[in-house]
């Protein structure tokens, strides 16, 4: 396989932008119509992800070792879409047909061989990884909704019980899908792992969001949802060692932070934890009872509510981070930040300017791309069994 030739042909094709994955999927669905229902109606995001993943694979095709981890994660993760080994050749055919279409005259038999060989290698790693994962965890977990509380008109707190144990580390996110909607979204459990395996999710219905709207408005106790394996390690506690913590959360960003608080409680460690919780207005704090109970039970936890907009001071907006910086110097602590992209980037910017260094600030990446090359789970000395 000529890696240079492969890379060069890919850069020619990639220049056509979104046309390429569009052509690829249309080819696949026409040749194998049964695959259409494995994908959601809106394919725009899916096309981006495919191109990013393919681009990453191609640019590393001559250092296969660096790709293996990524491909194994990818292959195991594809089980949640009900992908089986026999689907891979169809995808390979559609891929080759697409490349041929866009390369036109530049398409040669040697290129065809290169690409077929490369795809064969990639798909084999993915298939093997899926096979290996089969005995470790199910392709997805079916979970029953035990509790569904509407805390605000667009926000619900769900309690789920999966059919099997879904192991996760506080701070991670799990995939959630409603059987009628073929899309997956990621939510962080708001609790530390429990003996009965139940999970608490905080879901805000995004306007026009298919999964979130369904979960908030279209689900009730007794309904079933599907869950997928946990991902993400940017918000887990292990990089913080045994340091004291400063937690910044706004809106439903409170969910993973709540699980961190519960983890600290379960560890029985002597950390001091200061929590700053923000919301647009006083009415938007949706978990007050639980928070007040936590503050009352744990003397090492201090909670400060930060109201963004107050009716008494119209036009002014208080950011959580402004209050944090005004209250003192936390630079000896590890800082965890979770909220909207705007809130997180504003907070990180303000803290960095105030002299906090990147190693002590923990937050998730912006505009999550779950198939991006940097998406790997923690390789922590953690034997909670099955945490990828």
């Amino acid at each position: 396989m000529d890696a240079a030739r492969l890379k060069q042909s890919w850069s020619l094709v990639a220049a056509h932008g979104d046309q390429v994955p569009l052509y690829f999927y249309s080819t696949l669905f026409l040749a194998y119509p049964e695959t259409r229902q494995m994908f959601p109606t809106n394919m725009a995001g899916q096309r981006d992800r495919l191109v990013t993943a393919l681009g990453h694979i191609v640019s590393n095709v001559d250092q296969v070792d660096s790709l293996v981890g990524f491909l194994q994660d990818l292959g195991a993760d594809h089980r949640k879409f009900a992908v089986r080994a026999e689907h891979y050749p169809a995808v390979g055919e559609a891929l080759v047909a697409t490349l041929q279409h866009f390369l036109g005259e530049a398409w040669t038999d040697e290129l065809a061989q290169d690409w077929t060989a490369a795809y064969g290698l990639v798909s084999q790693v993915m298939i093997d990884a899926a096979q290996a994962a089969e005995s470790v965890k199910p392709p997805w977990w079916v979970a029953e909704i035990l509790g569904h509380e509407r805390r605000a008109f667009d926000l619900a707190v769900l309690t789920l019980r999966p059919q099997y144990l879904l192991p996760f580390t506080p701070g991670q996110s799990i995939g959630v899908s409603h059987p009628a909607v073929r899309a997956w979204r990621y939510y962080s459990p708001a609790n530390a792992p429990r003996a009965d395996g139940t999970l608490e999710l905080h879901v805000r219905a995004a306007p026009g969001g298919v999964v979130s709207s369904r979960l908030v408005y279209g689900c009730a106790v007794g309904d079933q949802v599907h869950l997928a394996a946990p991902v993400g390690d940017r918000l887990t506690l292990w990089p913080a060692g045994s340091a004291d913590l400063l937690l910044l959360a706004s809106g439903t960003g409170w969910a993973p932070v709540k699980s961190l608080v519960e983890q600290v409680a379960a560890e029985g460690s002597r950390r001091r934890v200061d929590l700053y919780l923000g919301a647009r207005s006083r009415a938007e704090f949706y978990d007050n009872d639980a928070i007040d109970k936590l503050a009352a039970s744990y003397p090492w936890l201090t909670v400060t509510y930060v109201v963004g907009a107050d009716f008494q001071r119209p036009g002014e907006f208080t950011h959580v981070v402004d209050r944090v910086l005004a209250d003192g110097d936390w630079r000896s602590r590890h800082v965890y930040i979770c909220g909207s992209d705007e809130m997180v980037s504003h907070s990180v910017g303000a803290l960095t300017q105030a002299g906090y260094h990147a190693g002590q600030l923990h937050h998730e990446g912006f505009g999550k791309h779950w198939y991006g090359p940097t998406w790997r789970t923690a390789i922590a000395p953690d034997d909670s069994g099955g945490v990828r």
Partner: protein
Amino acid sequence: MSATPISRYDGGQVSSVQVRMTSDRVRRWEFDAASFARRGYDPTDVDRFRMQVADELDLLAAQVANLRAENERLNDHLELHRHGVLPSAGAAKLPAAKEVNLLSAAQREAEQIIAQAHDYAQRVAEYARMQYESYMRAAAEEAKQEAERAVTEYRSSSGANFDDSVATREALRIFGEMMISHMQAAARHLDDGSAQLARTMERIAAEVTAGAAVGASGAAVGAGGAAVGAGGAAPVDGGRVRVALPPRHQR
């Protein structure tokens, strides 16, 4: 919440039995009654039921379409056999570029409609939020003024008999009453808004089914569901002050 520990996955086959809406479930389905002052069934219950029924209809329609296609394929095979031609071993024929482009165009159009619905839902949600906040601000301001005025009046009329706790109680009562009456007015506005939303939803849904969109109706239902949620009435907390309310928006 039960305290029984959960079992680990044991590598067995995952039974993915989807809970389907069957005629039996439809007959046995019990709707909660609407709130005390409203007649009929609880609207949230009804909406959820409609979503499940719509899912089932979509599933059945897809199955029927697949069966029809399979039927056609088998008939074609039969025809070829009758004429003595042996059909090829069934390797999937790759589609020509023209067909591919037709499907791609339909996919794009479906996504445009989805994006349009998404954008509209976001604007509505933002507008509703702004309206709510400005109403609350105005209501709080007016209620405060009314309460202060009442206390001043009471002070001047009671002279030496001025009692602090009475004044506070009066102030709270007036404040509460004013807030409630403002919120009722706001809720009436929101009702009108949600009626408008429903009309817009129907218009978008009609465009979707009329167009050549591929499976876009499912997405429009999802977007429409969210839009209805965004237009719902803001919760009214009348708990503090006992005042006789016209029963319109009690939760």
